[in-house]
């Protein structure tokens, strides 16, 4: 189990827009480079991409939550 941290502070989003499905659900498998979330910083949306492969075991933040740089955002069971 490892934790991916936010590179930037801002507002955390798990989906591309409020009406759409999340990029990935808990239990889903990720590969390095895969889009898992967005962080809105000063009205620009920055992509959060997986830097490892594994299974998403838990998101530590909800849609629309504030996030600090360096804060844990998702736990991954590494393959």
């Amino acid at each position, binding site marked *: 189990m490892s934790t991916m941290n936010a590179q*930037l*502070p*801002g*507002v955390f989003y798990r989906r591309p827009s409020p009406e759409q499905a999340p990029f990935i659900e808990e239990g889903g498998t990720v590969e390095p480079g895969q889009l898992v979330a967005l962080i809105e*910083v*000063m*009205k*620009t949306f920055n992509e959060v991409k997986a830097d490892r492969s594994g299974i998403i075991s838990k998101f530590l933040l909800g849609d*629309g939550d*504030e996030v600090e740089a360096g804060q844990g955002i998702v736990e991954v069971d590494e393959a």
Partner: protein
Amino acid sequence: MTGRSRILVANRGEIAVRIVRACHTAGHEAVAVYSDTDKNARWVRMADEALHIGGSPAAKSYLNTDAILEAAKYAEVDAVHPGYGFLSENAAFARAVTAAGFTFIGPPPEVIELMGDKASARSAATEAGVPVVPGSRPVTDTDDAVRVAEEIGYPILVKAAAGGGGRGIRPVRDATQLTEVFAGARAEAQSAFGDGTAYLERALPRARHVEVQLLADHHGNLVHLFERDCSVQRRRQKLLEEAPAPGLDERTRNELGEAAKRLGEHVGYRNAGTVEFLVDPDGRFYFIEMNTRVQVEHPITEAITGVDLVAEQLRIADGASLSLTQDSARHSGAAVELRINAEDPDNDFLPTPGEITSFEAPGGPGVRLDTALTRGEQISPFYDSLIAKLVCWGADRQQAYARARQALSEFRVEGVANTIPLHRELVDDGELTEGAVHTTWLEERS
């Protein structure tokens, strides 16, 4: 709202400071609102009363109509000034403010609604005899698109109807290229926006962005206060603005002003608003959109006309007549505004939130600095990246730019990367300061 009023400032940052100043100057009381992170902000310190309205993300505070109305009721204000951005062009907000018994300092909700919709704004302009960019109805297949494009004339833009903010646009130079890309553009729009509807619009290469300031009161007086050139943009975001528009001949200037007034009169405009146009290299102009609020770059119009636009907004909302007429409106000299943003010009303009460790403001004749920040304050990641607006006026354009050069050499903002170094380059670039540039000039420059 008569005599001494209480005005709620439903905004933050430099524009909140600007509005509090205007309230106090006119003898009104200002009530500020703030989010968690803005607790000790400058406009909060300046206001007569300040109320907390929610969490730091804008959706929980400055975009929260209920929280703002609750604050307005609690503070027993008379009127609400929406500033720019946030809820300023939200007709439902304007309606809710009015329904709760407060004066909304802006145009009527129906006008916000009409001008906020691309299609209805375009129709209103056409009805008012204001030229619009030649464009089409929605087109569905390639043959149809080619037929319609012939009527409009190349080069054209294929635009996703559901796109916005510069997204979902493809430039096309001729029928061959249109045939190649049309189906793909529709599919892309379908996947990006959930709607594959596309329409075509004439592309206007090397056009300038020129906008006209309007003021209208409730007694049938409507004036234009000349124009601003906002062609220095990146990704359709304005970075440097000038008034008057350089090199614009007096006839075109008058025609633009009159066109903006026709549109304002046609839609029953009230309060301050801005009509935006593209002007092609031959001086032909086309309506793009109307902003139904005070504009970020309003200070350059104030600098060349001597009219306090926010003071006029308060007067108009108060039921008073404009303090000027079209005949008494004059412009003198030239002004330039430089937007100092917390963005790194050397790193693709990536936003740079953080603490301001050093802040030395410029000064001198004709130099105005609108900002809510100072040393030791945090630039929050939750809002836009504007640190300060540096506005320099001169008796002519050369003097305005000379003062801008001096002011930029004095201005120190440390702790976060920002656009000051880029502005130092721009004010030394003769193409800009001695000529007239178009909307893609900056992006093509480097």
